[in-house]
């Protein structure tokens, strides 16, 4: 397999294009976003106005009446102003509510779309992509990266809108009251920004270190949980506990540091804004003494200083999470922008039948007869009967373009033949089968399928014509029946039972608590490896493909059971071209042709008896004089 690449932590390479792209996911109706924007602006305006109302309420509504023992009528202005305040508050809350409701829908639809696009694209990517990335890396796209976008879209965006408009309104009021004072406040703000930036850069550093330490810790725990039984057998518990303790402690120190740096941000910005306030007050008092500004103005000015620093520090704290959301989005978009598997083939697979005039014609029913439908130059189609004749002509292949895995491989599998591939791990057996179904594309030579170059066959059609049973059998969460039906979605229950019988899986399925309706958990962990393989064989059987590839399909089935399913396997293989990869030579003995591979080259070929006569590598393998690893 090609080497895996590790993902490094990164900042987004481009900010604006990605932000725009996230926006394009949010809604196709821009006016909705405009409405949200205005709602947020109106909401923050209401908050500013609410604060502002205090002054007239006290100055005009209350102060003039102090000590007058007023009539109810005289309280009217106060009451009116309070009613106005209530209206402002209610309006503000209403704006926020509507904006929240809209944003909730937008956010979730956005994430839904992004996830769908990501998954849909992933389904079309070539296998080499999956070889190059660990599952953990790919899963992280769906979990942490999408989650970061969620935070940015749902709270980040509105909060920035809200904070920004609050800051702007307050700033406008401040400039209106005293431009000179505003300059001092700005100067102090700049200092604050520098301090917070210093801390946040420290905090990012330490965060990276923490992630590394936690990755190591998680890796160790995963490894030990997986190898727990070995630990017990070797009574290695004390050593493991000790090592774990060291790693755990290292992670603790790193996490503590990262958390402290992130946590001090709050008290520091908060208290610095208090200092800011005090300095502004002293400065203001001096200006009052100079006669530059009035006393009343200073009081309300200071009020605004307080409500100005809050949104500013909020925006600063939002900035980091917005940036990581953009970085996450960038990773996702990179996948969405990837080239899907090449699929330039025009030849498709169709069901066919002989009509009353014995003409070979296409039909929509499933007849068990298949044909390749090849477009001709004149716009008509030609039907070529699928026979399962596979030919490799001087095929050379490399996964990474550097290390050649197959060189000049040529062979010919005639329809209905059983072809066995034998050789050490890494000799290229599985690679050959991966090339027939075009999981990978060859660099040199050609592969012909019923005389058609596989590159000319539409990929889905090609693969539909091939059944495959892999060595590592993974199943899906679902019932036994659903897992078998995966091979052919329209299979009836009878066909499923029939396939299970063929694979000798029927016996054990019947013994399961709910038979064919037994739920299989996660990776089918309530079944043994051998039982899983039997299910995979049943799955291939129900799909009833013209050509079958068995890649170590019976490796975990003991020889007695294998003997029991031999008949079923023979039935399954009858009339089909079959490629068998097997470790156990007893499995390949009755093949029409056996090819012995060594480092990507076919070194011997022939049937069992021929090869034994040649007294070469196969003979040595078979008589146990040579090792297969």
């Amino acid at each position: 397999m090609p080497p895996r690449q590790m993902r490094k932590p990164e900042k987004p390479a481009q900010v604006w294009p990605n932000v725009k792209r996230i926006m394009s996911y949010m809604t196709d109706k821009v006016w909705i976003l405009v409405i949200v924007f205005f709602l947020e602006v109106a909401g923050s305006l209401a908050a500013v106005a609410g604060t502002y109302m205090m002054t007239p309420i006290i100055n005009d509504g209350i102060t003039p009446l102090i000590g007058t023992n007023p009539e109810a009528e005289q309280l009217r202005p106060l009451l009116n102003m309070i009613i106005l305040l209530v209206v402002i508050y209610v309006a503000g809350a209403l704006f926020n509510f509507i904006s929240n409701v809209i944003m909730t829908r937008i956010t979730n639809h956005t994430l839904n779309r992004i996830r769908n696009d990501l998954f849909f694209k992933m389904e079309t990517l070539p296998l080499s992509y999956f070889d190059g990335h660990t599952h953990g890396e790919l899963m992280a796209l769906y979990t942490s990266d999408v989650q970061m976008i969620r935070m940015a879209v749902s709270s980040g965006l509105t909060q920035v809108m809200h904070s920004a408009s609050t800051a702007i309104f307050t700033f406008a009021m401040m400039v209106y009251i005293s431009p000179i004072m505003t300059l001092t406040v700005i100067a102090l703000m700049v200092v604050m920004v520098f301090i917070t930036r210093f801390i946040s850069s420290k905090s990012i550093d330490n965060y990276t270190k923490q992630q590394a330490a936690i990755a190591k810790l998680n890796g160790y725990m995963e490894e030990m949980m997986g190898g727990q039984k070995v630990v017990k057998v070797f009574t290695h518990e004390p050593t493991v506990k000790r090592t774990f303790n060291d790693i755990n402690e290292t992670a603790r120190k790193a996490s503590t540091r990262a958390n402290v740096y992130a946590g001090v941000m709050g008290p520091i910005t908060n208290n610095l804004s208090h200092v800011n306030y005090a300095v502004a007050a002293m400065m203001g008092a001096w200006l009052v003494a100079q006669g530059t500004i009035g006393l009343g103005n200073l009081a309300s000015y200071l009020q605004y200083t307080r409500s100005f620093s809050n949104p500013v520090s909020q925006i600063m704290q939002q900035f980091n999470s917005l940036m990581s959301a953009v970085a996450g989005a960038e990773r996702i978009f990179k996948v969405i922008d990837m080239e899907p598997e090449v699929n330039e083939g025009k030849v498709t697979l169709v069901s066919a039948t002989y009509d009353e005039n014995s003409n070979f014609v296409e039909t929509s029913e499933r007849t068990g007869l298949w044909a390749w439908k090849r477009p001709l130059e004149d716009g008509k189609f030609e039907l070529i009967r699928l026979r399962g004749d596979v030919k490799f002509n001087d095929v050379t292949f490399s996964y990474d373009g550097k290390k050649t895995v197959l060189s000049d491989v040529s062979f010919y599998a005639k329809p209905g033949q059983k072809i066995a591939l034998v050789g050490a791990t890494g000799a290229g057996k599985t690679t050959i089968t991966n090339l027939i179904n075009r999981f990978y594309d060859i660099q040199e030579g050609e592969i012909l399928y019923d005389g058609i170059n596989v590159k000319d066959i539409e990929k889905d059609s090609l693969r539909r014509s091939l059944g495959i049973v892999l060595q590592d059998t993974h199943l899906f969460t679902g019932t036994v029946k659903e897992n078998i039906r995966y091979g052919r979605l329209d299979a009836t229950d009878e066909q499923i039972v029939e396939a299970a019988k063929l694979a000798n899986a029927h016996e054990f399925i019947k013994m399961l608590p709910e038979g064919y309706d037994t739920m299989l958990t996660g990776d089918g962990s309530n079944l043994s490896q051998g039982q899983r393989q039997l299910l995979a064989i049943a799955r291939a059987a129900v799909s009833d493909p013209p050509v079958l590839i068995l890649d170590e399909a019976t490796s975990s089935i003991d020889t007695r059971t294998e003997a029991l399913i031999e008949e079923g396997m023979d039935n399954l293989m009858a009339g089909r071209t079959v490629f068998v990869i097997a470790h156990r030579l007893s499995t390949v003995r009755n093949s029409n042709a056996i090819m012995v591979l060594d480092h990507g080259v076919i070194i011997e070929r022939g049937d069992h008896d021929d090869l034994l006569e040649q007294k070469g590598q196969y003979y040595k393998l078979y008589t146990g004089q040579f090792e297969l690893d």
Partner: protein
Amino acid sequence: MRNILSSARKYIGYLIFAPISIMLEVILEVYIPRVMTQLVDVGIPSHDLSVVAHFGLIMIGMSLLSLVAGTLATYLSSTGGIGFGTELRKTVFDKIEDFSFENIDKFQASSLITRLTTDVNYIQNGMMMFTRVVFRAPFMMVMAIIMALRINRRLVKIFFVAMPIILIGMVLVGYFAMPLFKKMMEHFDKLNQTVQEDLTNIRVVKAYVRGDYEKKRFSETNYNLMESSIRIELLMSAMTPIMMMIIYGVTVAILWNGGQMIIYGEMTTGELISFISYIMQILMGLIMIGMIFVNIVQLRGSINRINEVLNDKITLNDGKENWKVEEGSVEFRNVDFAYSADSEEKVLKNINMVIKPAETIGILGSTGNGKTTLVNLIPRLYDVTNGEVLVSGHDVREYKLKELRDNVAMVLQQNVLFSGTIKDNLKWGDANASDEEIMQACKYAQAHDFIMSFPDQYDTELGQGGVNLSGGQKQRLCIARALLKKPKIIILDDSTSAVDTATDSLIRKALHEQLSDTTTIIIAQRVASVLEADKVAIIDNGRIVDYDSPENLLKHNEIFQEVYYTQMKGVEENAA
């Protein structure tokens, strides 16, 4: 809960002092607005710069002090909270290390990993929040109430009307939100599972051209997740304005009543403004407490899962006697075994078997008939349900586990190598093994040659799970690792399935010739692997149906004959 909290012992100092410094921070936080008011109400009207400077400097001083207290509180609560999480993780990990096979089977590795990572992290974060907020919010409330009371007792009544409304509101939210939240988490897990399965099965998906089917499956789960999260978020977004309305309502009521008090001379303007800000602090505190409550309820799942591990009774404990394993004899006396006490299906039924020291014993039978279970009882990986297993003349339950397992080496069917060098892995068998001993063991296990063919030889780094080795190479390393223990009994549970027959026979030959004092028990698929054994036990359906020398078995045992002829036919004909 007590179980979990006991992990806090080591960092208890931090966890106690964190709230104290938080209290200091809160006191300052409550006082600073007061100084602010004085600065505006007293300082500035006085037109005296020194008075302004006086209040200004007090305020700066208090802010800096509050900054120190806040920083200290962050430091203490981070150290304490993370320390607590670290200790908890250690407690859980150590407990798992003490698990018996039965305990391990019950939980499964993947679920244990989730508990150690996700669940412990949730609890750790909960603890950090707990130290920061749980003390802060109530203390802030108390302080603010005191200050508010000092200003005006009558106005506080308004607040006491609002409080129960807020409380009822929070309880209602909790009541309605919890099930919705649970539903959303379920859909989220389902989505992850769908992706995970698609990734592990990608070859199957592509080979069967099921891309569209997978897309359909995914968009369904994705849609469900969206719907359920919209539902909970809508509920939440309705709550915020309602809470805000309550707070605003209180403010307005205070303004109206307080305003009249000012008019009648019962209160000053400055007092009213401070009073409003204190009431705000009280209400904010209340909302914070509500959030904590919701968070703790969310933590409940994690706490339960951790407790399941911590409370799980370890089913297998050290024996009381200090017996030494003197020689490699094994005896099964009337042994029955079932994997769980209440299951009726016995995996082993009435097993009686005697293995003499230095004998080589083969065990043959179909998958699922109890071969592995049988040998697992010898190093006491499980305890028998009935009867007894004796090693070196003593019941295995009487030995100290270390003594027993050090002398009964077992090469498991599902074997695991760990990341590290080949040598590191081999030293699991004997930490003090010399290079010569290591090499010797590897020669016996036929691993020496391929190890030497690597550029770094014995110092070759293995990836996690030994990914860069072939199946047969891994198996031979596992055998060498077991040999390094210099055991009295060695059990090979289908340990050479990926090794070719020739190497397989070389390994058996080495064991036979070089370790002739060691009792060897071999479970094998291949009949060739047991042909040279002294005796072979044929297991069928949980019973020993025959136990005899291979020669005799070939004469009278049908199962043995069947396996023998299917496997050996071709070889004999052609090798002859």
